[in-house]
């Protein structure tokens, strides 16, 4: 009964989405307020219905209702409750359900908190969003229905792939989807703006918070996914340039570019048609990623079950959604007026450079991901494009990007003094040079990549700190005054500094752990000791253990440093029966300084076991850097400036939301104020 309610709710949701996708758009075209208002109530209803459907599916999983195909295929009586809940989105059908839920959630958020948007813009945004909901609900109901019944019901299910039974993996898809789907807001805003024929700073302010939210979620989703790969795959690797990873990286790169170009629209009322295009492309890349992952055109370790019918459907939807929006763009974008002018050497110029490099990076990842497919389709020849390719093309693009990241924030709007900006980075330059020499001396004879990495790290971290120090006039005014200035600094400034430094920390982690890790691969018997860096790993013994749905052999490693105990590690080899599969579980002791990583393999038949031990210095900074980037984004989100577009601030006296500059209470709106830009040379 309950699955039928869910099924019914999903069908009803589709009907509501059809209403939401038509009436408000017609209303906005005619200027009919009542029809426009339908959008909000429809969006909330849509969310409630999808949530009901989702709840019913979750219920079927939790109570192990094996009359539902989806539950049989992906669940099992013995599965822990956590994975029964997470198992809902651990499969293709359920993940579509989650995708639809999040989409409806964003729509409802616009309906509830978008009270300060002009009625026509809100109606159009909701209308466009509804069409994406229609696409996904249709896709789910027609090709991937999770509510299908099975008769007679089998006594038990097939279980969930043991690799997927892991908290890190279980909880990173919702974050990824919050990111992918969140970009649908920017997409909907872009299309609404094209329909209205108006893009102005107010528009940028409305779009930016939604983009920031999506970007934060995607950042954390990617970070968690990478961390999962690190501790699950058992080789200490954390990024494989796998098509599924690339599918998440492309919208992230485009979204990052969008965040930066939206600043230019907001501050300078220019770069409009490019920003609109970027907003559409960012979500299109999310959709493309979905296609690539689910259609089976690309092989991937993470791929869902393959069904060509699904591929054709998503392809059709892509042509409709993305093709339609790009056609609208081709038609309407030429009429967008060019706004504020600027010189190439300026803050705008730096942001354009940022966009150029990020867009090229994104295009490169797309090229590398699709090239094997393209070559096969056109010539029938096979080629592999793997990590060595991506590393060799991405690193050269990262160098100027990171180089500019330290300089850009020091440049003034409109026309800047590059020499002056560089002069203020003297200290960063000097220390980067020292770092280069020290690293070169340390790795002498080896690869020069660590030298490059360390130069970038020092340059970016120090450059960001210098910019921040100049902003609060550290050392030029009394310290208390500097602290007060820092306190009153716009949150978006804090956000930028923290996010930029986050990237620096990630590069630090990549460089140090990639260069100075030690490992030991060999056979160890109980009592044997292996030495890695300053640590001694002693295999104390092994013992059988029993988990909820597996049996395992657990090893105990005593790790000491100079005779002092540091950690006890318990790696396992596990044997799952449903489905039958042997896996290994790494044991990791993480710390800010280094990770100790142990994996145990097969017995050699003479009392010894194959082991892999790693000591990876600073490796956790790869993900802490990702967390810092997200934190920076979240801080930016709380900026006062964004509350114009941010929901739930209706009490503010809004004169005309289309002209934020008209409001004298928002001094940051003026790009010439020192708070908005960096202190210029004469002030420093």
């Amino acid at each position, binding site marked *: 009964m309950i699955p039928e309610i869910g099924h019914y709710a999903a069908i009803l949701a589709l009907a509501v989405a059809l209403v939401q996708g038509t009436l408000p758009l017609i209303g906005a075209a005619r200027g009919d307020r009542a029809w426009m208002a339908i959008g909000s109530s429809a969006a909330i209803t849509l969310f409630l219905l999808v949530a009901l459907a989702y709840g019913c599916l979750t219920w079927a999983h939790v109570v192990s209702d094996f009359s539902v195909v989806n539950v049989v295929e992906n669940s099992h009586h013995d599965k822990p409750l956590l994975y029964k809940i997470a198992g809902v989105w651990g499969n293709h059908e359920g993940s579509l359900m989650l995708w639809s839920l999040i989409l409806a959630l964003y729509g409802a958020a616009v309906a509830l908190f978008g009270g300060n948007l002009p009625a026509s813009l809100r109606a159009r945004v909701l209308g466009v969003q509804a069409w994406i909901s229609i696409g996904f609900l249709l896709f789910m109901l027609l090709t991937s229905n999770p509510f299908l019944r099975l008769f007679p019901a089998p006594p038990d299910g097939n279980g969930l792939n043991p690799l997927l039974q892991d908290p890190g993996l279980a909880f990173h898809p919702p974050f990824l989807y919050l990111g992918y789907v969140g970009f649908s807001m920017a997409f909907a805003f872009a299309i609404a703006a094209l329909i209205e024929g108006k893009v102005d700073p107010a528009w940028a302010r409305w779009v930016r918070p939604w983009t920031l939210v999506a970007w934060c979620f995607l950042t954390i989703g990617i970070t968690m996914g990478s961390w999962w790969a690190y501790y699950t795959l058992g080789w200490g690797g954390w990024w494989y340039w796998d098509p599924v990873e690339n599918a998440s990286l492309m919208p992230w790169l485009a979204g990052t570019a969008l965040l930066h170009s939206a600043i230019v629209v907001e501050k300078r009322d220019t770069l409009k*048609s490019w920003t609109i*295009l970027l907003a559409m*492309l960012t979500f*299109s890349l999310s959709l493309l990623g979905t*296609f690539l992952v689910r*259609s089976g*055109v*690309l*092989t991937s370790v993470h791929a869902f079950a393959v069904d*060509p019918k699904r*591929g*054709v459907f998503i*392809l059709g939807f*892509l*042509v409709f959604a*993305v*093709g339609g929006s*790009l*056609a609208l*763009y*081709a038609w309407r*974008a*030429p009429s967008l007026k060019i706004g504020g002018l600027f010189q190439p050497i300026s803050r705008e110029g730096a942001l354009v450079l940022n966009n150029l490099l990020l867009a090229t990076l994104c295009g490169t990842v797309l090229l590398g991901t*699709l090239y*094997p*497919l*393209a070559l*096969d*389709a*056109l010539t029938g020849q*096979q080629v592999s494009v793997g990590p060595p390719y991506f590393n060799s093309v991405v690193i050269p693009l990262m160098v100027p990007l990171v180089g500019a990241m330290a300089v850009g924030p020091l440049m003034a709007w409109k026309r800047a003094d590059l020499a002056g900006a560089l002069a203020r980075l003297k200290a960063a330059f000097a220390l980067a040079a020292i770092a280069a020499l020290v690293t070169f001396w340390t790795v002498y004879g080896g690869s020069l990549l660590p030298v490059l990495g360390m130069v970038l790290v020092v340059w970016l971290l120090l450059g960001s700190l210098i910019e921040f120090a100049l902003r609060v006039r550290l050392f030029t005014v009394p310290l208390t005054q500097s602290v007060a200035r820092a306190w009153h600094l716009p949150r978006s400034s804090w956000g930028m500094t923290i996010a930029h430094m986050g990237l620096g920390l990630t590069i630090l982690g990549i460089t140090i752990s990639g260069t100075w890790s030690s490992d030991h691969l060999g056979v160890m018997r109980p009592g044997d000791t292996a030495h890695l860096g300053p640590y001694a790993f002693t295999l104390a013994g092994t013992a059988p253990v029993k988990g909820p749905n597996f049996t395992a052999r657990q090893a105990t490693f005593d790790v000491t440093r100079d005779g002092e105990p540091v950690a006890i590690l318990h790696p396992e080899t596990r044997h799952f029966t449903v489905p039958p599969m042997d896996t290994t579980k790494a044991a990791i002791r993480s710390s800010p300084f280094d990770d100790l990583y142990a994996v145990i393999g097969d017995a050699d038949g003479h009392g010894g076991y194959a082991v892999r031990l790693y000591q990876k210095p600073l490796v956790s900074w790869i993900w802490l850097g990702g967390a810092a980037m997200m934190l920076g984004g979240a801080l930016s989100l709380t900026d006062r400036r964004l509350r114009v577009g941010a929901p739930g601030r209706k009490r503010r006296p809004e004169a005309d939301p289309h002209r934020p500059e008209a409001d004298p209470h928002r001094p940051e709106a003026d790009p010439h104020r020192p708070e908005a830009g960096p202190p210029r040379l004469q002030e420093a």
Partner: protein
Amino acid sequence: MRWKFALPLVLFLGLMALLLCGLGLDMRDIPSAKIGEPVPTFNLPPVGSLPGLASKDLGHGQVVLVNVFASWCVSCRQEHPLLLALKQQGEVAIYGIDYKDEPAAATAWLNELGDPYSRIGDDHSGRVAINWGVYGVPETYVIGKDGKIAYKQIGPVTAEALRDKILPLVRKLRAAP
């Protein structure tokens, strides 16, 4: 200048056309690098009572199939009846390479399911299979009269593959001078 705003649309539609072609492709289907090349030189000991298999046994004006199998391989069971039926028809000889297997286990397996092979080589280490470019079992090769590899079937032989690809190719190769 209006055309440049249509550029994204044009590029996108191109990409979609590409993906549509891509949907029809199986990227997992990797053609052998050794098509058209002579079989690698090898000499494998026999399994059970049948003669072993060596490169000198291939060619000599005879078209044969070489099937790489193992008793532990699940999909080999799936194709096995087809191979037995093929032997019954007697249209083409099937040679086996027993991949990373215990000869005793392979013999028991063939006793249980029937033996479609006229020769079997025991590739205990799997090294010969690597020289052939095998990356999974089962794989089936069509060897021409000149001892060159003409085709490689990845995965189990199916009735369709036999009917549409393998047998027509065998006949064509046999008819060739």
